[in-house]
Structures are given as structure tokens and as C-alpha cells.
């Protein structure tokens, strides 16, 4: 049962990240995902210090706000200080992450967080932290949180599909016809922040980046259709979670590490068998042609 809990939680994390990752890649903002996943650290610590609990809602809000602050700072440094985007990303997220590290070390006694947990997460403990209603344990807390996050993201993408599509493809045109690029940008970044925080308990701040980018990058190589890209990204993410888990069990190693490693290996497979060269992908392009 514990195996199953871990695999399902990992799959939920991977799917949530994969869906958002598709948009990050298409917006050429993959590194912004990286930045947000690190920069939310002070948000988590501060939320913890204020609320005194690891209650997920407080943390989500705290980290969500910091995530949006991060995007804002990146834009600000880029536009006002006239720094290149990559440089402004580098400055912003390392700075915020460092503040987080300092805060953790300062309040180490009071904060039930340590650097290892923050960086690498510990998905193996997921089944231990159960949600109890009445006297009945109804399964791991993380499972429910990630379930809610994934549902929220799917709703966000379903209802905002055309706005996300247009603001990603052609922001200038979107603005011209009266669709706010800024609004959708910050909504997406808010979603990335929330997902990162919810995921980071399980997979940690570094590995969440792998799940944001690798499955989406895999899907990008496999299809020319955004809807299929979203689907393939989820499949790649879930596949990485399942195979990664069993490899970790087999090797008796870090589960999160194995999952991220598998995400990379799946990406390499997709790259080797990409639409222009592969045997594998020709099958996909045929279905895509039949579909269209």
C-alpha cells in the first residue's frame, strides 16, 4: 500500500509539473520555473514562522506570493535595470534562495525544516504523514494536496486554454485584441509557485525543476499539437515516476533522485527517436496526421 501511495503522489507531482512545464517551455521561460522553485524557500520559512505550522494552505499562500514577487523582480531587473533576462533570473532567485537558507539556519531550532529536506525532499515519508478525519486515517496528506493542485491546474488549463495559448504564442497580438498578457503571465507564475511548493515536500526544490522541464521537453519533441503535448508530458512524467520508484527500490537509493533521473532518460529516448529520425515516433506522427 505504501508503494502505491508513493507512486501515486509522485505521479500527481509529475503531472502537475509537466502540464505547467509545457507552457514554460513554449514561453521560453524554463529557467523561470527553476528560479521560482528555489526562490519560494524564504516564503515557506516565513509562512512557517508566522503560522507556526507546516499547514499546507499557509505555505502555499506564502510561497505563491514569493513566487509572484520573483517573477516581478525578474521583469523589473530586466526592464528597469536593463539587465539581460538570464542575468536577472540568476540574481533574483539565488538572492531569494540565500535569504531562505539564512532564515532556516537562524531559526533551525524552531523550524521543522532542514536544508536536506528542502533540497531533496523525502517522498518515502509521504505515507507516514496521513490525513486523519474523525479517528480514521484516510491516506497520506500529500496525496490529497497534490490531488487538489492537479485538479486546479487542469481546470486552469481547460478554462484558460485559449488565453494561455494565445498569450504564449503571440503576446503582442493578444494585447492588441484586448487579452491581458500580464494577467495570464502572473496567473501562470502563481500556478507554478503553488505547484512547486506543494511538490517540494515530496521531491525537493532541485528535483522539482527536473519534473517541470524534462517531461514537457520530451513531449515537445514528440508532437506538433499543444493538446497532445500536454498529454504526452503527463505520460512522460508518470512513466518517470513509476520506473523511477522501482529503480530506487531496486538500487535502494533516493526515490526522488531516481524519478528525476528517469525523466532525463525518457527525454533522451525521445530525442533519439525524434519525429524526423525515429521509428518509434513515426507511429506518433501517423496518428497525429490521422487526427488532423
Amino acid at each position, binding site marked *: 500500500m505504501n508503494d502505491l501511495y508513493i507512486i501515486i503522489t509522485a505521479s500527481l507531482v509529475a503531472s502537475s509539473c509537466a502540464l505547467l512545464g509545457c507552457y514554460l517551455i513554449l514561453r521560453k521561460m524554463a529557467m523561470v520555473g527553476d528560479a521560482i522553485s528555489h526562490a519560494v524557500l524564504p516564503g515557506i520559512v516565513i509562512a512557517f514562522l508566522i503560522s507556526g505550522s507546516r499547514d499546507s494552505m499557509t505555505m502555499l499562500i506564502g510561497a505563491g506570493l514569493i513566487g509572484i514577487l520573483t517573477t516581478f523582480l525578474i521583469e523589473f531587473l530586466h526592464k528597469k535595470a536593463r539587465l539581460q533576462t538570464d542575468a536577472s533570473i540568476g540574481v533574483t532567485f539565488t538572492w531569494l534562495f540565500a535569504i531562505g537558507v539564512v532564515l532556516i539556519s537562524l531559526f533551525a531550532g524552531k523550524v521543522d525544516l532542514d536544508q536536506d529536506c528542502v533540497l531533496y525532499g523525502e517522498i518515502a515519508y509521504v505515507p507516514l504523514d496521513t490525513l486523519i478525519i474523525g479517528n480514521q486515517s484516510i491516506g497520506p496528506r500529500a496525496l490529497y494536496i497534490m490531488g487538489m493542485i492537479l485538479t486546479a491546474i487542469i481546470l486552469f488549463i481547460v478554462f484558460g486554454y485559449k488565453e494561455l495559448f494565445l498569450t504564449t504564442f503571440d503576446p503582442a497580438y493578444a494585447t492588441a485584441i484586448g*487579452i491581458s498578457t500580464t494577467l495570464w503571465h502572473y496567473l501562470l507564475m502563481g500556478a507554478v509557485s503553488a505547484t512547486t511548493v506543494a511538490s517540494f515536500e515530496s521531491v525537493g526544490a532541485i528535483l522539482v525543476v527536473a519534473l517541470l522541464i524534462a517531461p514537457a521537453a520530451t513531449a515537445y519533441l514528440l508532437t506538433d499539437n499543444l493538446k497532445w503535448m500536454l498529454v504526452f508530458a503527463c505520460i512522460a512524467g508518470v512513466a518517470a515516476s513509476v520506473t523511477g520508484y522501482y529503480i530506487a527500490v531496486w538500487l535502494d537509493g533516493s526515490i526522488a533522485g531516481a524519478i528525476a533521473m528517469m525523466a532525463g532518460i525518457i527525454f533522451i529516448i525521445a530525442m533519439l527517436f525524434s519525429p524526423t529520425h525515429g521509428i518509434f515516433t513515426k507511429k506518433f506522427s501517423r496518428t497525429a496526421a490521422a487526427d*488532423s
Partner: protein
Amino acid sequence: MNEEIITPALEVHDLTVAFDRKPVLWNIDLKLPEGKLVGIIGPNGAGKSTLIKAVMGLLPLSSGYVKLFDHPIDEVRKKISYVPQRESVDWDFPASVLDVVLMGRYGKLGLFRRPRKADYDVALDCLKKVGMEAYINRQISQLSGGQQQRTFLARALAQQADIYFMDEPFAGVDAATEKAIISLLRTMTEAKKTVIVVHHDLQSVTQYFDWVLLLNTRLIACGPTATTFTQQNLQETYGGKLTLLSDVGDLIRREHFPNREGVIKQPKTI
């Protein structure tokens, strides 16, 4: 210089746009009539693209205001359509021609609503008008330059707007596509639509446009092509004499380089 226009489609008053305090557009005052095909002419770096972007509110204005059909821009967004420069988007984006053309319907649809049968019909009809009906489900990454331009044009048409801003729609397209586009623009203006086109090629100006707007940081002239597109105005636009705001040496140097149309060669479209 300006003729009196009773109901202007576009009115720009005292518009200045500056990047880092360096003015790109200076004190632009103009009115454009409805139902005309208007060409914006000027050398590279004259602020032609900046002008249409500023008019559509895509750039912050340093001063001045813009009115479309006598309303502030945000009240008439649904009447505006825009054809950005072809190179401004990533054509490797996972989308089909139909996906892109349907974007033209998004503004009218509003939040949360999906395109319906009627929207698909409009999109297909517009693709027919630009001669792209054979490529409806083609991935946009597989289009030639001319086909990309037609796709953008179909998207703008699908909006059924009243005023169209087009940023160099003829850049890098072949002669056949250019002719097809211009005759389409003609039918649009006949239907009382206003079409404003950033244009590079001086040769075709008199043939294509009803009105011209000569621009080089400041507005040189704006009026019917016959009376405005004169030797003297051109001289002034293209650096025949020193202006206060532009460095003439810079201008002359630019003149020696071939413009973009000359450089980009695109495969034949049809």
C-alpha cells in the same frame, strides 16, 4: 498639411514615444480617414513599427493620446486587428494553421468560451480568402514565409475588425503573394475597413496606397498619395536635409544598406 477629416478612424495627438529618453517618435499629430488603404513610409529606424504599436497601446507613451473612432483605445479593442511582423513569433510552436486563424475569434468569444461552429466557419472562410484552404491542418512550422504571412492575414480577417494594423506584411513574400494580399486589402477598404500598412518598398507606393504617412521620428507628411507622395516630402523623409532629431550621418549610412526585403529570400509559395 492635413486635410480636414470629419470622422477620423484614427486620431493621434501630440504623440511622443521614447526609449531611454531617446525619442523614437516625436510630436506626432495626425488623422486618418475611414475606409482608406494607408501606407506608413520611412527609412529603417524611423519609428514605423513603433508608431502602430504605440497607437495600439502596446508601448507606453511619453506624451499624447490616441483615439480610434473617437474613443479611447481600450473601449474599442474589438474593432482593432493587428498583423505583427512575421518574425515576431516562434513558428515552431505546436499549432496548426487553423489554430492560429481561430485566435482571431478569441477577442469576440471572451473568457471561458470555446470557439463554436460559427467561429470555425469564419476561420475557414478567411483561409479561403487568402488562398490557404489547402493548408488548414498544416503545422505552422511547415509553412513557407508567404504562407505564414497569409495565415496571419487570415487570423486578422477572422476578427472582422474595422481597423487593421499591419507591420510589413510584404516582407519576405514573393510577388504572387504580394499581389494576392494587396487585392485582398483593396476589397477590405471597399467594405469601409481602414487598413494601415507599414511599408518599405517605395516603388509600389503610388500603386498600392490611397493615403501615405511619411515618417522619420517626426511626421513629415500625411495625406492622399497623389498630393503627399512628392519628391520634396521624400527628400525630407529620407534625409535630404538635416533634421533636429535624427543624425543625418546615421541615416545616410543606413541608406547604403539594402533593406530587408532585398535580403530575405523566401521559397515560392504557391
